[in-house]
């Protein structure tokens, strides 16, 4: 078993590094890039949902904030892409702090409702603040990224291969950060808040502070995912905040396995590819998603990741599906 592990890692590394050369179909490569975006979104979403047990419905709003911020900074203020990218994440983080400050004091149920309201409000703002966002039509012609790095000079990203490596790096950094966070003292505190908040507070944990941190970090990653997407599809519009994204994220996270990194990644990749091969109308697809979500919740709430953990008999059972205790 121990020899297998490094082999698997090396194999995965080779596949990931050489993906653009293995994959000949531009369409499939596009899907892979798309799944990369979803991995970043889903993993960051799961920080709040899976580890802290808070049902936030605001993630699509932060995604939209990141997308619009980056676009407007680059197109209106000539800000270099790298800076706009970072600021997109940063602004999403700040918005999360502002919204979270009152919202995270509420009961879990009110929090869910308020975050949903926030997402809908943002959507109304995108649509109606025409001078800023060009309204319901959105902003086309978003320039492709060019990374102005100090030593390497200006690296334009305008090929699928370029985008692939860019999102690959983002995915790796996201996974690394989240893994480091969850496995550290901080992750332990998150779990303690989820498992028994009163006890955690009695032990000196400021639950509110840690919730703010989780909310803000999640928003940051959603923001940079939004920025990447805007400069990839060269378009940004109110669709970025569609209710559809909430559905998608929930299915990916819950079916994938809330609280497990590999499960969520699996969920994200699976549900990027599955809808593309299901040639049906969007609404019918959503009915099926709803059914999948429902069946998963009732029969397999720990998701695929949880099932995998069970099967591998790892003692990390504690990381699985939300099992809060009030």
């Amino acid at each position, binding site marked *: 078993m121990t020899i297998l592990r490094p082999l698997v890692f090396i194999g995965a590394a080779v596949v990931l590094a050489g993906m653009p050369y293995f994959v000949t179909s531009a369409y499939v490569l596009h899907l892979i890039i798309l799944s990369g975006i979803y991995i970043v979104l889903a993993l960051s979403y799961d920080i709040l949902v899976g580890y802290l047990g808070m049902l936030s419905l605001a993630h699509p709003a932060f995604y939209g904030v990141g997308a619009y911020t980056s676009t407007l900074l680059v197109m209106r203020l000539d800000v270099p892409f790298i800076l706009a990218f970072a600021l997109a994440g940063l602004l999403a983080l700040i918005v999360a702090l502002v919204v979270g400050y009152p919202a995270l004091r509420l009961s879990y149920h009110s929090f869910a409702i308020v975050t949903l309201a926030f997402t809908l409000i943002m959507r109304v703002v995108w649509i109606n603040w025409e001078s800023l966002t060009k309204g319901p039509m959105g902003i086309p012609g978003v320039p492709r990224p060019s990374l102005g790095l100090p030593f390497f000079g200006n690296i334009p990203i305008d090929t699928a291969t370029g985008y692939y490596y860019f999102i690959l790096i983002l995915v790796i950094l996201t996974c690394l950060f989240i893994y480091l966070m969850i496995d550290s003292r901080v992750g332990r505190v998150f779990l303690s808040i989820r498992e028994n908040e009163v*006890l955690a*507070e009695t032990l000196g944990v400021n639950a509110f502070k840690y919730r703010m941190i989780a909310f803000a970090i999640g928003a940051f990653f959603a923001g940079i995912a939004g920025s990447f997407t805007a400069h990839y599809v060269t378009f940004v519009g109110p669709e970025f905040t569609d209710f559809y994204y909430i559905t998608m994220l929930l299915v990916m996270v819950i079916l994938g396995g809330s609280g497990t990194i590999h499960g969520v990644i699996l969920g994200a990749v699976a549900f990027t590819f599955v809808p593309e091969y299901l040639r049906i109308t969007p609404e019918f697809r959503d009915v099926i998603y709803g059914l999948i979500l429902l069946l998963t919740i009732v029969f397999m709430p720990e998701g695929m990741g949880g099932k995998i953990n069970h099967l591998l008999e790892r003692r990390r059972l504690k990381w699985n599906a939300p099992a809060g205790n009030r």
Partner: protein
Amino acid sequence: MPLLETVDLTKNFFGLKALDRVNFHVDRGEIVGLIGPNGSGKTTLFNCATGVLPVSGGRIRFKGEDITHQKTHEIALKGVSRTFQIIRIFPKLTVTENMLLAIQQHQGGRILSSILRTPYVRRLERQARQRASELLDFVALTPLRDNLAAHLSYGQQKLLEFIMAFMAKPDLVLLDEPAAAVNPVMIRNMMDRIIQLNQEGYTFCIIEHNMDFVMELCHRVVVLNYGEKIAEGKPQEIRNNRDVIEAYFGG
């Protein structure tokens, strides 16, 4: 100066007076017993003192500082720890992880440093694990240190909750019915350990119904009934106090 004191502490629940102008104190080094019939306000007193419940009137002071309106975690970090009537532990975490959580916040350490695992934080972790080992040894729970807390027996969980309260070397330890539903051998063990810890300098306030426990351990006993303090004094005095006897048997 008393370690913990309440001045005219009052707590109302929709018109029901759970605590009615209670004046109560614990001095450093004491083991104070808090007794009274069910519903007399003992756990409510603990909840107010630890910031779990908001206070309706009066003041609470810890080490001379007014903590009446402070939050639970703030008070905890000042040196108060407690156990609960119904055991509170983290069932899905291991015994060691439970212990580490009991000291982590007191140690400090910035969040970013924790994520990046700086040498400083790694040293804090080592110290925490060391302290956990000491306490696990103290109650002979060491073999179970990597087990999930949920898999422990009731008695073992109670022991775990007990030693968690000492991880951060608090000034004051509040125990809520530590002897409840525990077999006599374990009760004896617990009493011995409390005496030992008290000699090491820990101050205790204990809610208990087990009179032998209270009589033998406590330096002083405070009696509550219907939210009011009705008696206070040495265990022997309380035992013979007419009001106390009436409260337990007459009411």
